């Protein structure tokens, strides 16, 4: 008993060290920092001012809400797209092409996000490839404004997140016995009812874990919203960046950081409650 306890600690210690040194300590420091502000005499002291400031300035909390809503929308669209893709790879295509399709899914991740986003921009800008062909084919008269809109930004986010939804869904779909689908069909189930009552409930753990990852990644994404979103469509990470780097107000930035952490935890908690999945059941 003693020795196994000891070996457990030996194995755990690198992980714990990593957690404490790199995650817990800096966050504690930021946490303390977020409650400190200069009073009217210019002295640093305990204060709730950073948080009050957030609620007083509409631009801050509007950006905050916007970021949350768009991340949820991104997660939803990613889910809509990932389900048929995963189903196709697992249940429809012949096994020997499965690996090939997985590599195709991975392919975009071999280039950095920055390059990917610039790739999109080359395609979508007003003098870009898509507009060029649309004009050439006479479908439109004037170039369409496709870049710097919210729709484009969501598209970019969905594209970036796809893999993180498809992979966990594939892993749960693989454990779905084909005969369950056939049995449902034999008992009179239509395609829609089979999806709703058999496939989706079976995939729930995979969808949940995929959704958590996609949501977190979108919420914390900086590049895509910044480069593809419109000039006046701010992402909350940009606000944090501005506080730290532009205004050099680390205390305000720390408060924003904590608000974002609270937000993501809150929405994920609500999502788990709604879908009635326990955190322990979420497939990895």
């Amino acid at each position: 008993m003693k020795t196994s306890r000891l070996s457990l600690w030996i194995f755990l210690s690198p992980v714990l060290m990593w957690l404490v040194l790199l995650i817990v300590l800096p966050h504690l420091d930021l946490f303390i920092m977020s409650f400190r502000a200069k009073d009217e005499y210019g002295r640093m002291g305990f204060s709730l001012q950073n948080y009050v400031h957030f609620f007083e300035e509409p631009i801050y909390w509007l950006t905050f809400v916007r970021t949350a809503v768009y991340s949820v929308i991104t997660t939803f669209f990613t889910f809509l797209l990932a389900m048929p893709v995963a189903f196709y790879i697992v249940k429809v295509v012949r096994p020997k092409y499965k690996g090939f399709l997985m590599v195709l899914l991975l392919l975009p991740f071999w280039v950095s996000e920055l390059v990917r986003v610039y790739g999109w921009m080359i395609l979508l800008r007003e003098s870009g490839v898509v507009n060029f062909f649309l004009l050439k084919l006479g479908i439109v008269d004037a170039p369409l404004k496709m870049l710097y809109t919210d729709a484009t930004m969501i598209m970019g986010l969905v594209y970036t997140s796809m893999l993180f939804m498809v992979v966990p869904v594939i892993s749960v779909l693989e454990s779905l016995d084909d005969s369950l689908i056939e049995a449902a069909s034999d008992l009179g189930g239509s395609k829609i009812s089979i999806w709703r009552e058999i496939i989706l409930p079976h995939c729930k753990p995979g969808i949940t874990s995929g959704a958590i990852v996609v949501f977190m990644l979108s919420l914390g994404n900086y590049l895509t919203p910044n480069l593809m979103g419109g000039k006046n469509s701010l992402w909350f990470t940009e606000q944090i960046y501005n506080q730290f780097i532009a205004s050099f107000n680390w205390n305000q930035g720390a408060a924003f950081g904590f608000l974002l952490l609270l937000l993501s935890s809150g929405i994920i908690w609500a999502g788990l409650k709604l879908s009635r999945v326990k955190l322990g059941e979420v497939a990895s």
Partner: protein
Amino acid sequence: MEIDLSVKNCVKSFGSFLAVDDVTFDVPQGSFFSILGPSGCGKTTLLRMVAGFEEPTSGTIMIRGRDMRGVLPNRRPANLVFQHLALFPMMTVAENIAFGLRRRKVAAPERKRRTEDILERVGLPGYGGKRVDQLSGGQKQRVAIARCLVLEPLVLLLDEPLGALDLKLREQMKVELKKLQAKVGTTFVYITHDQSEALVMSDVVAVMNKGRFEQMGSPQDLYHAPETPFVARFVGENNVWAGRVEKVGEVVAIKTDEGFVFSAKSQSPLTVGDRADLFLRPEAMRIEPREPAGLNTFSVSVRAILFDGAASRLLTATDSGHELMVALPQNRRFDHIAPGQTITVGWHPESGVCFPAVNPAAAADAGGARP
């Protein structure tokens, strides 16, 4: 009598491989029809065509006179009990059973009544609220059947539903399935590789081999009058002698390779000098017959007594070492027999069946009793 299921010249090929090869049969309403064959012979493929998961390459499948070509599985009046049952693990027993009713837009109170009713009928009253993984193997079995029966299909298709159960439970479920079928009166089409299941439960059994039907008939017919060597090997236990035909006529005389001359009946025409196989049931051999006149008699030595209650047998061998199974009636007359003794056995020419010899490779494929 009305025909519920009619299959005509049905063929299914996967590439160049013929999984089901020109199968024709009719199943009258309310009967228990079994398809018996070794695994890989195409039983599941045939059943899946009836259920609608595969389209026949050629031939027709009709249910109550309606051609099923192009009709999707969810529109066919036939339901399939899957080999591994395929109960929905995300639903309770009652939800599993009500699934089909919900799809048919049956109102909730009616649905509840019918679900409870069918659970009662399969002997699981009050199990509706249980989760599927709380059930034992036999109970899952019954839920899978109830889930189909509640839809009142014209034909219930069962794909080796007892395969996963242990022996004791299988024996019990055999009888229960038969009783259930008699009670509900639905036409059952049952496939199995276990000859005892087929013989015990069915009105009519079709023996299938390599995609073809070898013989179709009542269990008694198959057992007593096999038409092909495959059926003789596959259905029930048989002793086999290889030999050469010496005389043809009402009964044929066959000289076995070890030198016995036996008379027996023949299923297919034989000519003198042909090689032939002689099949004989263990229970056709009488130990120490009191009136040996007209019987084929010979002596064997007892190697072992295989006691198994009513199914007890003697493992015996002829002088040349050919092993034979002899039924050992448990009427205490033969209690004196001990391993090592030599006994006389005799059998009536009517009980032995001869077929032209098949080549050894085909015989091995048949996979039935001992060669």
